[in-house]
């Protein structure tokens, strides 16, 4: 187990191997930031987060105030109870990992999406169809999150695309730290598509940012129209909703308009596509949306590269003027 961050203490397995190997990765400091330097644990594989080293910076909460106890005084050698302000988000650590992942994706022009839904909504089938539509045009890699088995990763690998299975054991969601490890393994190409299929669960993954550009919620028409109201956190967190299995609508009493209205009631900004992974209906619009997202990420990367080039040119000019 990593003694700095405690990762690998659980039953999480990355592609069948327990996650307790020696490794380097970002550690989050007390102020909630992830400075991105690698701690050596004698590990062999490098972490892709290459940021400059910053020393620990403790916030105001780090002040030692011996007059702050209930008694307002401090007698040497005597303990006294005192309150210490922390004022930090419970998810600060996960959010710092997610922010580091997001920066990593942006710098490389990678479009990362986090697919979330109940079990059985057709996430993997949709992924397979999406990969088939795009694999000639863009490099794709996939992370599959499930409590057990590598069945889903095998389904993805059958399409010829790299896939990594993360088994969360007893865990109910993927977290930012797991994705940082997955990036080390998968090494997604610059300007590629990085798809994360979260554990089938409409509750917990809503709270855990992985560093993705968007959460994509999948709701199938064999579920209830009121699911967005029953599980509002997930539909609020998502940027896109795919209403899947629409080829079955003629055989069901499912009111697709009502389902969309319920989803928009929770999240008016949702982009919604009606699709069928089986028949392929509606997938063209979803694939166009992905292509637009990929173009936007490429643009972001070009901006970063252009910005750095301008800075280098400016520094060279200053150096030449000396």
């Amino acid at each position: 187990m990593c003694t700095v961050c405690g990762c690998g203490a659980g039953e999480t397995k990355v592609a069948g191997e327990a996650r307790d190997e020696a490794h380097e990765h970002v550690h989050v400091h007390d102020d909630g930031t992830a400075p991105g330097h690698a701690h050596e644990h004698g590990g062999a594989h490098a972490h892709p987060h290459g940021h400059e080293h910053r020393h620990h910076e403790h916030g105001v909460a780090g002040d030692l105030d011996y007059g702050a106890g209930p008694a307002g005084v401090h007698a040497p050698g005597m303990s006294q109870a005192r309150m210490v302000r922390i004022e930090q988000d419970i998810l600060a650590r996960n959010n710092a990992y997610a922010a580091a992942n997001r920066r990593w994706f942006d710098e490389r022009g990678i479009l990362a999406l986090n697919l979330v839904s109940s079990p059985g909504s057709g996430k993997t089938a949709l992924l397979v169809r999406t990969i088939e539509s795009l694999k000639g045009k863009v490099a794709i890699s996939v992370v599959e999150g499930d409590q057990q088995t590598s069945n889903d990763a095998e389904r993805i690998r059958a399409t010829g695309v790299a896939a990594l299975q993360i088994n969360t054991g007893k865990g109910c969601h993927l977290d930012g730290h797991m994705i940082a490890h997955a990036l080390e393994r998968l090494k997604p190409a610059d300007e590629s598509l990085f798809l994360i299929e979260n554990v089938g669960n409409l509750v917990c993954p809503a709270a855990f940012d992985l560093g993705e550009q968007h959460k994509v919620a999948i709701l199938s028409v064999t579920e209830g129209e009121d699911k967005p109201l029953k599980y509002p956190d997930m539909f609020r967190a998502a940027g896109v909703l795919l209403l899947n299995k629409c080829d079955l609508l003629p055989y069901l009493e499912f009111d697709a308009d009502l389902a969309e209205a319920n989803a928009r009631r929770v999240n008016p900004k949702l982009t919604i596509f009606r699709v069928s992974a089986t028949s392929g209906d509606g997938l063209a619009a979803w694939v166009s949306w992905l292509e637009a997202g990929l173009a936007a990420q490429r643009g972001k990367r070009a901006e970063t590269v252009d910005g750095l080039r301008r800075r280098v040119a400016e520094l060279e000019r200053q150096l030449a003027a000396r």
Partner: protein
Amino acid sequence: MHEMALAEGVLQLVEETAMRENAQRVKLVVLEIGRLSSVEPEALRFCFAAVVAGTIADGAALEIVDVPGVGWCMSCGEPGAMDEVFGACPRCGGYPLQPTGGTEMRVREIEIE
């Protein structure tokens, strides 16, 4: 059961602070949990008791400050109380409401000695 992961997040923040302050033990942990956050306070309480066993916070009391939900109505443009993220505006009955408060999940402070 992501309350377990959240309880572990709380314990991490508490342990780091307690270590930095050279505390012998943690007596009280105060959290702020918004009514519109994705946390069930009773489940968190249960998980907290489980994860602190054997740590510096073993036996610490847990105080959860309930932060009411507040939203801004996109129909009438007025602020109002919100009990659910999909709730209707108490003034005009319209949708949707944009939450402006009550989504927090924070460790506010701890009492140590």
